[in-house]
């Protein structure tokens, strides 16, 4: 375990030394929006009951984050600071609407499962916080890398929760049965309470890894 961690530390440490990849890597691991920053908890807990829902919601959020970061960053010198939050919300809401149409065009069933949560991406504090804290102060390239890292980090975290909850609660991953037929499903994992349990376990794991990493350094 400790050897593996040491290797990981080395791998991430090397990548983090490169300034261009740092913006990307930080969202995946060091500043992961869910496991470190604990942002956007509403979709994290609500939509992570199955792996496919978690993945779809994560990718939808990542897309909105990427597009809004690009637009906010390219318009950063034109937006007066007094109306910046209103402008960001307008931009985010636009990309959320576009995502909503895109998901409807991909699958009606998926849209039915995620429907109400898609609109709620507008108020996901992760997206607004990246627009305000990063994209409004950095170049388009860096904002893109930041959004990609944060978006993929968010998707990864949601998938971590979704996969565990579906596996325990339904005995499958992506609707593919993993456990034998006589497996007794833990229904609680599919219910909202299961979201809290799984999140707590992942946070525990992440913090343990973080403490371990600090000690190694």
């Amino acid at each position, binding site marked *: 375990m400790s050897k593996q961690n040491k290797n990981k530390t080395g791998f991430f440490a090397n990548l983090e030394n490169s300034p261009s990849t740092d913006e990307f890597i930080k969202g995946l691991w060091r500043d992961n929006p869910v496991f470190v920053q604990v942002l956007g908890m509403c979709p994290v807990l609500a939509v992570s009951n199955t792996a496919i829902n978690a993945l779809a919601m994560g990718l939808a959020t990542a897309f909105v984050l990427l597009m809004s970061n690009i637009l906010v960053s390219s318009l950063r010198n034109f937006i007066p600071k007094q109306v910046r939050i209103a402008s960001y919300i307008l931009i985010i809401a636009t990309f959320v609407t576009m995502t909503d*149409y895109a998901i409807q065009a991909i699958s009606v069933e998926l849209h039915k499962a995620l*429907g109400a949560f898609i609109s709620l991406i507008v108020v996901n504090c992760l997206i607004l916080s990246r627009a305000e804290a990063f994209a409004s102060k*950095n170049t388009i390239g860096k904002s893109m890398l930041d959004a990609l890292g944060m978006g993929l980090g968010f998707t990864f975290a949601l998938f971590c929760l979704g996969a565990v909850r579906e596996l325990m609660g339904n005995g499958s991953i992506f609707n593919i049965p993993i456990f034998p037929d006589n497996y007794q499903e833990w229904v609680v994992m599919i219910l909202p309470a299961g979201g809290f349990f799984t999140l707590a376990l992942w946070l525990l794991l992440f913090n343990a890894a973080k403490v371990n990493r600090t000690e190694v350094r």
Partner: protein
Amino acid sequence: MSKKNPIQKNAQTGSLKMLWSMAGIGLICAFLIVMTYEGTLPRIERLKAEALEKAIFKVIPGMTKKRTFKLDENNNFIEISSDEKDAQLVYAGYDDNDKLLGIAVPASGMGFADILHILYGYDPNKQAVVGFYVLESKETPGLGDKIEKDENFLANFAALDVALSDGNTTLKNKVVTVKHGAKKNNWEIDGITGATISSRAIGNIMGESTEQMVPLIFKNIEVFK
């Protein structure tokens, strides 16, 4: 870290500039939304039509064939070959021997969050609603969306009484949603605790739609056979 372009501090921005920038962003956003809407519309309509087709087969148990009818301005049903927009359509379901099993009726009305679109199956032989499906809903996940998932609620629509009165022009009893646990009669819908508004909305939509459509369907029953 890298060099940043901080937001101008203490810069005096005129109202006009703020207005222009908001209007400009609004225009860009409007353009993007319209482009996406136009680009995805044909596929969304095709997928929705396929979903409707599946739903029709769900609300009329045992059907294998479908025919589409339109309600004209004289309250008569006419068979049509393809769906028409802005028309009150109903879908008749038949078995392999072309025996009429039921009629699927789309209905809509205001829910808690947005307009609810539902589809229910009416069996003229049993004079009852025999199937129910929510086509489109934006009700609160975990609460209002129980109208789609709650098994006890969905059980209301296995045989919901919509029998006609003696003159065949009105229903004997209008469909209503009652408080959870208070259902006594077959024309009542047992509501959901925690989804009161949404389950009442379903009751209102069903009540109004069956009150209007069931007598009309019954009057034109020969057209469907």
